[in-house]
């Protein structure tokens, strides 16, 4: 039972990572009703941008402490390059189509972005371990944990709290809630719905990119990085309920804990349990744990 602390610590760290990776997905679905496969591409774009920008920053001998800001800036920059292009250039013409068709369109875009990444950064792996290594580590239950993980947890709290505040307590957030409930009436009331879609898509994708760029120092950044993240964040978001912010948090915590328990006690079922939980939630509460009843259309 002395494993219990490490299990919880691992669970929290993994949950934080999952939450950052998935929160943008739920935001985009909540507002635009798009199950966005390109989310994984933005994660990968963020990871590549973070690794290469921070690598260049450190190679020039600039202060390493600021490399965290560079990670953040890299993610923001790369999203601002790609997200508005995709939303304005392609997605906005597709909103009238069926949910499943839009999913296919984002799948097509995901394929295109996968290779765009290879064209920009090549196929060789990128490493930047400094931001990760320079903070040292601390002990939990006799096991060393890199202090860097605390940044991830902090980031998850800031992202979740910030988004909740934005949605509930600001004018923009309240208008966005109106758009979510009825885009057509909002348009009639003079809200620029197109702009809200653009901002939501960009912001949601940026969260994925931030997730990617802050993961970059802990892994080697290789092609295909975002492919796993797509299904994982789908699992998180589906468990909590598509489009629900507290749902994504709950989903992240559930998946994080379930995974860390299985890694510690039964590593051979690690992947299995995550999707098993997803299937179980879909089987008993198809709209996720945090969901409201929806009227049936005749």
């Amino acid at each position: 039972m002395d494993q219990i602390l490490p299990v919880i610590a691992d669970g929290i760290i993994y949950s934080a990572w999952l939450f950052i990776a998935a929160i943008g997905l739920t935001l985009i679905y909540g507002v635009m009703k798009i199950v966005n496969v390109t989310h994984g591409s933005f994660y990968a774009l963020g990871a590549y941008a973070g690794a290469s920008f921070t690598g260049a920053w450190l190679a020039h001998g600039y202060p390493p402490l600021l490399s965290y800001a560079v990670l953040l800036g890299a993610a923001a920059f790369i999203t601002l390059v790609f997200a508005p292009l995709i939303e304005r250039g392609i997605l906005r013409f597709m909103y009238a189509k069926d949910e499943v068709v839009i999913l296919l369109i984002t799948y097509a875009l995901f394929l295109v972005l996968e290779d765009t990444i290879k064209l920009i950064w090549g196929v060789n792996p990128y490493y930047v371990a400094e931001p990760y290594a320079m903070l040292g580590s601390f002990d939990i239950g006799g096991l060393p944990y890199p202090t860097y993980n605390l940044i991830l947890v902090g980031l998850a709290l800031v992202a979740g709290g910030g988004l909740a505040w934005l949605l509930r307590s600001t004018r923009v957030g309240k208008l966005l809630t109106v758009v979510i409930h009825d885009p057509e009436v909002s348009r009639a009331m003079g809200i620029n719905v197109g702009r809200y879609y653009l901002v939501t898509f960009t912001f949601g994708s940026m969260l994925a990119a931030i997730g990617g760029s802050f993961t970059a120092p802990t892994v080697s950044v290789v092609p295909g990085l975002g492919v796993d993240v797509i299904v994982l964040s789908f699992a998180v978001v589906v468990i909590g309920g598509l489009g629900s912010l507290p749902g994504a948090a709950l989903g992240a915590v559930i998946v994080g804990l379930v995974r860390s328990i299985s890694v510690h006690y039964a590593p051979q079922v690690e992947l299995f349990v995550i999707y098993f939980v997803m299937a179980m939630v879909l089987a008993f509460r198809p709209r996720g744990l945090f969901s409201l009843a929806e009227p049936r259309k005749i």
Partner: protein
Amino acid sequence: MRRDRTPLVLGAILAAIVAAGPFLPPWLLFILTIGIARGMVALGLMLLLRAGLVSFGQALYYCIGAYTAGALGIRLGVSDVLLQMLAGAAVAAFAAWILGFLLARYRGIFFGLLSLALSMILYGLIVKNEALGSTDGLNVLPSTLFGTRPHEGWVRYTVVVAATFAGVIAALLVHRYLQTPLGRLAPAIKDNEIRVEYMGASARRAIHVKYVIAATLAGMGGALAATTVGHIDPEMAYWTTSGEFIFITILAGTGNVIAPFLGALIFGAIHTVAYDLSPNTWQMTLGAALLALIVFLPNGVWSLFARRKAA
């Protein structure tokens, strides 16, 4: 009423492949066989798509079929192509019959996500299981037919002929099915399910049947792919494999049972050519092609052939 030419065309395709096979290079036979395997999966997806359902986890049954074929060879020494396909189809059908009770209640995005979760469960199981070969996968015995091993150089031809026979029979059966009342229910379910219920039909049962048929075809395709490639690995259950199958189905359109096979061959051709010309941007080519298809040819390639024909 127009005469139904589909069985005739299928027969002609079969004759053409049997006759031309010996003169085609092995790599082309390989592409052809894989095309037929993928075409079978897409044929099943087409059935679901006609009812407005998109399964993002058809790789589940593809993988089940492939591993059934592999296990048959490794455990029992059975390497007969047709037996492997039958076994793959049977096991996949059984799995789908069980899971169908659950899935037939789902529509739209939730149907897709649940099927995705189920296929990822299988992926997770295989990846972490040494007995199933883990991420390395397993080798499959060389193919035989009716207890005889074809001579070196004739293996590909034997497999492609067996595959074409199986594919043509499957296509004919599905073609017949589409003309039955249960088969004709699909567009109605897509259109308005509640009216289907008022008519006295059970949408859930119809979808369950379609789901099992689709899985049977996917299992058969998986077994065929396993024996053709000679190797199976967990990637066959991964979501990107499901994505490829959906790609093929969308590419083909739902107009006719021949369309999925045609779609699979076009997909194979795009894949091969794009990969050959530029190994690092073949996915981009595929993605751009898919986008263009959805925008300009939403009813698939088949709509080019069937433009003037009424449904």
